[in-house]
């Protein structure tokens, strides 16, 4: 890891208003808007006494991660390859891998910041309690970030151009949002659907975050599903990635 490259990439991400909005502003904004609906601030029997706004805090946390990992990072990396920026880096003593790891770290940090903002908005604006099992929550968050980055790396690996990366990213984006519970929080899903969604990276992430929020240690199955996907996707990305 080259710190000068990392600083540069952080600066460059800060110059992308589109990425910044969707990663950092949109998830808390989504929460704020949902919370403005009075009915969503009433406890629901179907949600085991939780309010809709309670169930949407983990969803907002995951939305920022999915945007960072699946939309923003792959187009960035593919662009770097397409425009010969990786190649130029190969002529310096700093290898192009420094650029890749910097992109990943910068997006991981942005996703983490987005998660903090979502938790803060939930807590301050709508009195959503902070996770009662913070260590379990943190572990689930870290695994979710890793799996988002691994998925994004696969997209960057299989996409030859920025256009393709954008299209593949969008095609992956919506199913991932669904699994994370954007349309229907996992608590409200029928059991069979929740079980199926639990096998996907962000379905497992949503359930792990919910468990940690409620004060339990997240289920090993959920953590295992995320770790498993991370390993499989990372191996695939490393295998398929082309430097030029």
């Amino acid at each position, binding site marked *: 890891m080259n710190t000068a490259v990392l600083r*540069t990439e952080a600066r460059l991400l800060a110059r992308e208003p589109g990425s910044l909005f969707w990663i950092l502003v949109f998830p808390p904004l989504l929460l704020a808007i949902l919370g403005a609906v009075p009915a969503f601030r009433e406890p629901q029997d179907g949600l085991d006494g939780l309010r809709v706004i309670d169930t949407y805090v983990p969803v907002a946390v995951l939305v920022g991660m999915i945007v960072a990992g699946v939309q923003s990072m792959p187009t960035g990396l593919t662009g770097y390859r397409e425009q010969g920026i990786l190649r130029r880096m190969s002529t310096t003593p700093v290898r192009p891998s420094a650029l890749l790891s910097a992109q990943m770290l910068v997006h991981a940090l942005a996703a983490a910041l987005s998660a903090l903002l979502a938790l803060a908005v939930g807590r301050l604006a709508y009195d959503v309690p902070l996770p009662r099992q913070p260590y379990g929550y943190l572990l689930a968050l870290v695994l979710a970030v890793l799996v988002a980055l691994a998925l994004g790396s696969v997209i960057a690996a299989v996409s030859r151009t920025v256009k393709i990366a954008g299209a593949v990213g969008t095609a992956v984006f919506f199913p991932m949002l669904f699994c994370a519970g954007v349309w229907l929080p996992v608590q409200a899903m029928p059991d069979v659907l929740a079980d199926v969604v639990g096998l996907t990276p962000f379905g497992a992430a949503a359930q792990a975050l919910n468990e940690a929020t409620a004060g339990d240690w997240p289920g090993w199955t959920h953590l295992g599903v995320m770790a498993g996907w991370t390993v499989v996707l990372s191996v695939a990305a490393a295998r398929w990635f082309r430097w030029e």
Partner: protein
Amino acid sequence: MSVIEVTDLRKSYGGRSVVDGVSFTVDEGEIFGILGPNGAGKTTTVECVEGLRVPDAGRVRVTGLDPVAEHDKVAHVLGAQLQEGRLQEKLTVREALQLYASFHPHPADWRPLAERLGLADRLDARFGKLSGGQKQRLFIALALVGNPRIVVLDELTTGLDPRARRDTWQLIEEVRDSGVTVLLVTHFMEEAQRLCDRIAVIDKGRVAALDTPAGLIRRSAGATVITFTPSAPLDEGELSALPALASVRHRDGRVTLAGSDETVNAVITLLARHRITAHQLRVSDATLDDAFLDLTETTS
């Protein structure tokens, strides 16, 4: 003393041979040109020198180092400007220079470098906002910011307007005068003739000729060009029988002969014998352009 040695370099892609036994050495302090038609294998050859590609066979040494096995050491002594390749659109000139300087243990001071390359007033401009000439100058600056002993410039002036091209040529001469060896890849004859101390003409993956620009012109078959408009038609048989003749061309009543000094004398005798006047008679030395066409044709 040679700083680059390439010996019997070979590289093929998918069974198609692109570089087929190229050898040359570049001496310290010279501007060495690699000249050739598109697809001749020029870029692949310098990419092997830069360590971007692994040769199939042959030996490449840069200041005695292997560009693949000792990539990082070579990256400190060799700066490269690539034929294609951009920077991040929103990276400013200053940030790019600082970043690339940070990669090297003993970088050049980037401020005077930017000054010298005419970028001093564009330091806060983003890469995407630079003109074509400014982008090229920035790439030269990035290639030089590590204080390399050798700089490789690949198709540097392609796409530049004539003024920017001339400015860039002057810059390359200044770079050489500061003690840096320059390996220049080009398909512009004028550029190679003006700048290069020696030129390797590469055609179909092989070195077709290696000499000084003047030497290349001298050794080509049609080193002297004679053009005139004859007052009466000339006998084609007698024309083609001229000694040391390399080529004959007719266009709009004008005859162009390429040959040697011997051909000049013979054609004057021939014209006198038939009492034909040669209007607008011009005798000139061939350009590198002519020599190049001659050299790359004979190898095909």
